[in-house]
C-alpha cells in the first residue's frame, strides 16, 4: 500500500518535473531507457554473469523500429515498440541458446564479439543500414494520435515511466520466483543445481532472454525518442555504460538500475556541461570510487541500511 503510494508519488514528481522544465523530458526519457537496459544487465549479474555486448539488443530493436517505420509509414508507435522488442527477444533466444554454455569472461567475450559483428555489419552495409550515420525514424502516431514533438515526448515519457514501473515490478517478481532463485543459485553452485535435477543452462537461458528483451525494449523507446538509430547504439562502449549503470545501481533490487541510470545521465550531463571535454575522466573516477566503497551499488547500501534497521526482507 505504502509502496504503491510512493510509486504514484514518484510518477507524479517525474512527470511534474518534465512539465515544469521542458528540457528535462529528453534526459528523463533517456535515463529511463538506460535504466531498462541496465535492468537487463542486472538480471545477468544475479547469475554472476556479465555481458559486454548487450547493447546489441537495444541496437537490433532500434533498427527494426527504423526499418518497419520506413516500410509501413502509417504504423503506430506502440506497435513499432512491440515489434522491435519482439525482434530482440527472438535474437536473444537464438544467441542465448549458444552463449548460455559459457561462463564469466568467456560469456562476456562471446557477447562482446557477437555485438561487434553486428556493429561492424551495420556500419559497413551502407546501402541497407545507412552506414555509421544510421537511419532516421519519422515520428509515428501513438495509439492513433498524431502528435507534434512536444506532446509526443510527453506521451513517450509517460509511456516509458509506465513501462519502467511495470519492468521493476515484473523483474522483482521474477527474482523472487523459483526460477529467479535458481538463476541466483547458478552464481553460487551450479553443480548442485544440476544435482537437484535442474538444467542450469535452461535457467540461465530464460534469464538471458529476459535481459535481451529488456535491452530491446529500451532500444526501441530510445530510437523513437531520438528519431534516429546509429550503429553506436551497439558499440561495446555502450554495453560498457549499461554495465556501469547496473553496477552503480547494484543487483540488490530491480529499482537500482533506474536509480543508477538517472544518476549516471545527470552526472554525465553536468560533467559534460561543467568540465566539458573531460566528462569521461569524471565518470571513470566515480566508477572506481563506487566499486571501492559500494561494491554492491546503491541498492546494496539500501539493503545494508535495511538490515541495520532490522526490517524483514
Amino acid at each position, binding site marked *: 500500500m505504502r509502496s504503491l503510494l510512493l510509486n504514484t508519488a514518484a510518477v507524479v514528481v517525474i512527470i511534474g518535473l518534465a512539465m515544469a522544465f521542458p528540457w528535462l523530458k529528453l534526459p528523463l526519457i533517456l535515463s529511463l531507457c538506460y535504466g531498462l537496459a541496465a535492468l537487463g544487465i542486472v538480471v545477468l*549479474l544475479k547469475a*554472476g554473469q*556479465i555481458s559486454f555486448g548487450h547493447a546489441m539488443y537495444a541496437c537490433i530493436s532500434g533498427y527494426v523500429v527504423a526499418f518497419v517505420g520506413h516500410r509501413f509509414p502509417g504504423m503506430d508507435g506502440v506497435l513499432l515498440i512491440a515489434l522491435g522488442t519482439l525482434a530482440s527477444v527472438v535474437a536473444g533466444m537464438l544467441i542465448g541458446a*549458444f552463449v548460455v*554454455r*559459457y561462463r*564469466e*569472461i*568467456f560469456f*562476456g*567475450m*562471446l557477447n*562482446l*564479439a*557477437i555485438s*561487434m*559483428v553486428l556493429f*561492424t*555489419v551495420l*556500419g*559497413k*552495409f551502407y546501402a541497407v543500414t545507412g552506414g555509421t550515420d544510421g537511419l532516421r525514424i519519422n515520428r509515428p502516431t501513438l495509439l492513433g494520435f498524431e502528435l507534434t514533438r512536444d506532446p509526443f515526448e510527453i506521451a513517450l515519457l509517460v509511456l516509458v515511466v509506465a513501462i519502467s514501473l511495470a519492468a521493476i515490478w515484473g523483474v522483482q517478481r521474477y527474482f523472487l520466483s523459483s526460477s529467479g532463485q535458481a538463476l541466483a543459485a547458478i552464481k553460487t553452485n551450479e*553443480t548442485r543445481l544440476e544435482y537437484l535435477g535442474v538444467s542450469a543452462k535452461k535457467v540461465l537461458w530464460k534469464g538471458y532472454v529476459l535481459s535481451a528483451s529488456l535491452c530491446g525494449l529500451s532500444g526501441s523507446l530510445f530510437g523513437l525518442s531520438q528519431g534516429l538509430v546509429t550503429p553506436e547504439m551497439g558499440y*561495446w*562502449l555502450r554495453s*560498457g555504460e549499461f*554495465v*556501469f549503470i547496473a*553496477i552503480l545501481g547494484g543487483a540488490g533490487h530491480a529499482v537500482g538500475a533506474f536509480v543508477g541510470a538517472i544518476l549516471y545521465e545527470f552526472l554525465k550531463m553536468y560533467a559534460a556541461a561543467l568540465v566539458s*571535454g*573531460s*566528462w*569521461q*575522466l569524471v*565518470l*571513470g*573516477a*566515480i*566508477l*572506481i570510487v563506487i*566499486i*571501492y566503497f559500494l*561494491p554492491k551499488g546503491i541498492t546494496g547500501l539500501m539493503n545494508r541500511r535495511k538490515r541495520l534497521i532490522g526490517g524483514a526482507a
Partner: protein
Amino acid sequence: MSRDIFILAMLDGMSYAGLLFLVALGLTFIFGVVRILNVAHGSLYAFGGYGAASLGLWLGQGSESAVASVLLLVTGAIAVGIVLGTVLMLLLRQFQDRDPILQLLVTFGAFMIFEDLQRMIWGTQPYFVADVVNQMGTSELLGVVYMNYQLLFVPGAALAVYFLLKWFLNSTLMGRQIIAVTHDREVATALGINARRIAYLTFVVGAVLGALGGALASPTTSLVPGIGADMIVLSFAVVASAGLGQITGALITALLIGLSRSFCVYLAPEFEVVMPYLIMVLVLLARPQGLFTVVQARKI
C-alpha cells in the same frame, strides 16, 4: 595475378599482424598471471604511441640514424609502460580478491580516465613522427613499393619479442616463477614465490608490450583520440580466439586476423572490418576455451 594478390595480401597483413600481436601479447600475458582482463590496455597502446612520438619530436629531430630513432621509440614505450603499469597495478591492488567482474570494471574506469588524460596532454590534432620510416627506406616487390619499416622491421620486432619472452619464461628463474604462478597461485605462494612481486613484474612487462605496440605503430599511423578503444576490442578478439594466457596462440591468431583483413581488401572489402570478430565468434563457438587452450577437468 591471383598468385600475386596472394603474396601481396600476405605482405600487407604482416605489419598489422605484428602490431596486433604485441598488444594482444601484453593483454594475454597479464591475464595469464594475475587473472585480470585489463580494459585499460587500449590506453597503454595509445599512450605508448603518443609517448614515443613526443620523445621523437623532442629529441629525435634531425637525427639521421634509424637505430637512434628506433631506440627512441622503444625507450618511449618502456617509460610509458613502466609508469602506467605501476599506476594500474597500485590501483588494482586496492581491489585484490574482489569479484573479477568488479576488477574488470575498475580497469574500465581507468580506461575512461586515460582517454581524457591523453586528450589533455596531447590535444586532438593528429600526431606523428615518420623519420624512422624514411630512414629505413623502401623495397619493391612485384611492382609494389613497400616500406622496409612495415615489411621487415615491425614483423621482425614482433617475432623478436615473442622469442625473447619465450626464452625469459622458460630459462630464467623469474620466468619459471611466473609460469608457476600462472599454473597454481596457491601452490606457488606456498613454495615461497613472492606472488606480489611476480604480479607487479607481469603487469609492467604486459604494459610495456602494449605501449610498444603503440610506439611501433606511431611512425606509420596518425595518433588521434579514440585509437585505444578500437585496439582493445581487436586485441580481445585475438586473445579470446587464441585462448586466454596463450602466447603462441596469440601469435598465430594475430597473424590469422591480420592476413584475413588484408585478403578482404583484395577480395571482399565489405568484410574487412567484420573479419576479426567473425573469427572470434566462430572460434569461441567451436572451441569455448579458445583455439590453443588445453581443456582441464572442472573440479567441484
